[in-house]
Structures are given as C-alpha cells and as structure tokens.
C-alpha cells in the first residue's frame, strides 16, 4: 500500500473510532428517561 493509502486509512479509521467511542461514552453515561 502506498503512504497516501496508509494516510487515508489512518485518518478515516481514527475519526470513526474517536467519534464512535465518544458517542458510546455518552450513551452509557445516561440511560433512557423513564
């Protein structure tokens, strides 16, 4: 794989993993209102 390919992979994976983890942190922090 070319360096540019690794760059795109790293950026996309990094953004997706970071936002997904933040979302789940928030979801687990507050349950549904009863």
């Amino acid at each position, binding site marked *: *794989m*070319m360096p*540019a*390919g*690794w*760059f*795109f*992979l790293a950026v*996309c*994976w990094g*953004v*997706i*993993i970071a*936002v*997904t983890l933040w*979302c*789940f942190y*928030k*979801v*687990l922090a*507050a*349950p*549904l*209102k*009863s």
Partner: protein
Amino acid sequence: MSSRETWGTRVGLVLAMAGNAVGLGNFLRFPVQATQNGGGAFMIPYFCALIFLAVPLMWCEWAMGRMGGEKGHGTTPGIFDMLWKHPLAKYLGALGILLPVGVAIYYVYLESWTLAYSFFALRGTFHDLAEVSMMKDFLASYQGLNQQYFHGIGTAYMFFLATISINVYILYHGIRGGIEKLANIGMPILFVFAALLVARVFTLGAPDPSVPDNNVWNGLGFIWNPDFSQLGNSKVWLAAAGQIFFTTSVGFGAIQCYASYLKKKDDVVVTGLSTTMTNEFVEVIMGGSLAIPVAFAFFGRDLTLQIAQGGSFNLGFAAMPVVFERIPFGELLGFMWFALLFIAGITSSVALLQPLITFLKDELGLSHNKAVAATGILCFVAAHIPILGLKSGALDEMDFWVGTFGVALFALVETLLFVWVFSPDKAWEEIEQGAQVKAPRFFYYVLKYVTPVYLLVLFLAWTIQQGPGVLRMDGVAPEDMAWRWAARFLLLGMLGGLCFLIHKAWARQNRHKEAAA
C-alpha cells in the same frame, strides 16, 4: 389512546437502530464501491455525504419519529399529517410504509441465501469447488437458474421459509421482547465474528509466497490508495452519496418507526449519531478490511477487479467461499462470514417490516398478533414474485423502484415537509428537545439549505440516469417482461392498498373524534 411500547435500554435502542442500518451492503457493497471509485479519494465525497446528507437526515427522521410517537403515530402517514395540515400529506406518508415493506419482500429472500450458505459452509457442501467460476455456477444453481448442483428451487425455498418464519417470530415478540433482544444478542455476535475474521485476514500475509505482491496489505491499498483524478468525476460523488444513503438506511421510513417508541424527553442527537457511527465503524473499518483485501491476496489485482465489477454478490457468495476453502479452519471461517451477513440482514429486515405492523396497530387499531400475521402473510405471498421471477429481473425491477427511486423521492419529500413546511426553527427545536449534547448550530443551516439540495441532485441524477431505461425496459428480453410487469403491479397494488387503508383509518379516527365530542 392505548399506551405504546418503549425501548428497554439506551444501548438496546442504539444496537437495534445500528442493526437496522448495518446490512449486507456494509460488507459487500462498500468495498466494491470504494474500489471502483477512486480508492482512498472516494472517502472524501463519502465523508462529505455523511456530514451534509446522512447525519442531518438521520436527526430529522429520529425527531419526526419521536414527535409522531408522542401522538400515537409511529409511521409517516400520521407523522406527515402532523407536519402539514393538508389532506394529501397522509397519502404522501404511504411511501414510508411501501418502501420498507417493498424492500423487505426481496431482502428476506437475499437474507435466506446467507442462512443457507452458513449451513453449507459448516457442512462443507461447496468444499470441492475451488474456483470462483464454479462457485458462481453453484449460486446460480441454488437460485434455480441451472440444475448443476440443485434440482430446482426447493432448497432455496426451504431456507426462505425458515428466514421469514424467524422474522415473524421476532416481530411477534414486539419491540422490547423481539427486536431489542435480537439486537442485544445479534449485534455483539456480529462484532465478534467480524473482528475475528478481520484478525484472520490481517495475519494472512501473502498466501502464495511465489507471488509476494499478492498480499493483504496491497489488498488494503486496493481500497485505500487514493486516485485523486477521480474527484473531478461527478459519478464518483454520486456513488459516494448513494453508498452513504443506502448504508445509513435513511429515506425508508424505518428509522421514524423505531424512533416513535422513544419517550418525549429522550435524546435523539447523541443516540442517533451513535447508531450512524456504529454503522460507519462496521462498514469502513470492518467491511473495508474483509472481502476485497482477502480477494486481492488470493486472486491478485486483475481477478479481484473482475470480481468486484461482477457485483457485490459475486464477491460475497462466489469469491469468499473459495478463499475459505484455501485456509485452515475454512469451514468455520466461512460459517462466521455468512452468519455475520445473516445477522446483518435479519436486524435490517425486521426493521423494514415493523412500519407496516406499527401502522396497522396505530392507525387501524389492529391487535399486535393480527398486525404481525397480516404483515408476515403479505411478505410471504409477495416474495414469490422476486423469487420465481429472479431470472427475469423481477428483483432488480423492485430494487430500482423502491430501493433507488423511491428512497430518494421519499427522503426529499420528508426533508421538505419537516424543514420547510413544518418550519426550520420548529424542526431544529424538535431535534434539540431532550438533547444530551446540543447539535452544532452549523447543522441547522446544513439542514435548511444543503441537505435538500443534495437530495434533489441525487433524486434527479438517479431518475434521469436510470429512470427512462428502466421504465422503457431497455434491453429486457420479451420473455422477461411479464415478471417485471408483475413486480410493478405488485408495488402499485401495495401503494393503492395502503392509500385505501389510510383513507379508512382517518375516516375511523374522525368518527371516534366526533363520538368523543
């Protein structure tokens, strides 16, 4: 108004909504699209479409659903009637039931193939088929298109019956006891299977030491190496928007239905974003690391390109089993591959069938059992058109009208109604109600101006590019036309039937209101 069911837990809701979005396309369609449309550079229009199209539209659908659910309307006829005080509004909402059910009618059949292949993989049924061309013949034979491996369509039909029965069984147990439980069990299994398969793929290296360039890392490069010249091509932007559109399951009416089981003060901003990001995680990270890299490592660049151009099913059902035949524990890995596709499929198909059940209950007052039975029977009977007319293209015909034309039209209509007719400020207020974290104000303007234009361009592009050809049945053999017409009449009949039921439902509700007054 009787009290409606609600989701049990927030994690269950996120997994169920993510299950709705995560489908066969995450593992099969995305890698093919990325490979064919500029590799890493494809991710630029892909992320643009995610931010400007999918995320705002998803928030709209969640907010619309929650708003409708508060008033006892879990589907778009009732929701549109609340947004636009016009007699036509509720009939426009019929699309939000026709589209998911229309897709479910053939999707359940495709899903049944994954169930069948899971069994075949475990039993070693295609153990001796060492070439992709042989697996293609095997798939065609399974579909009843030749007699080489199966005598007729009996096996496929049995697995279809099993699949539809499982769907009905889950739906019969309701939102919390059926759909949420399925998501709570199924989605973690899907993640584990996908993670194990990705780990196995990443440790493959170069399967044939005599051709060291055919390795997994170059296979990843096949998807990720950017070809910036493709960014000037409008087709790449359309393909990226299309992929985002299909993968996030917006524009069907299914998200509104699930969201209608939220409570008034439940958050939709973070919860909705969580489901979209879970879908992206499965698609980009897991889906992008499986089929294409492994195909590249075993078959090399040229054959992988050929396989990808042959379509998603070629990749998933013909190339992947051949790969699994060539590595240790192939039966188990093959089973995991098809089982994860089945889980991805079933968590989507129950979401596609639920809107009709919710409509029959909410608007016509049917009991849950009757609504599930009616939906199951309709899906079972109607599915015979795509099953028996598969060779004649009945499934493709339905897929265009509901899965491409219909969703783009419906997404455009719902956005215009929610943002412009209902008013942008009220729509934004509705999204922000109960928000755990406020959505960035930037999205207010995106929702108001960019998303409707994006959708209009998509709708016009797909309609103009494909519509006339499909409508005229260009290139369709005369003997195949009957099945294609049958598919059209089925969809038109369902649309007419839904409009009739909506008319009856509103007449019934008016009678109740008058009696109460």
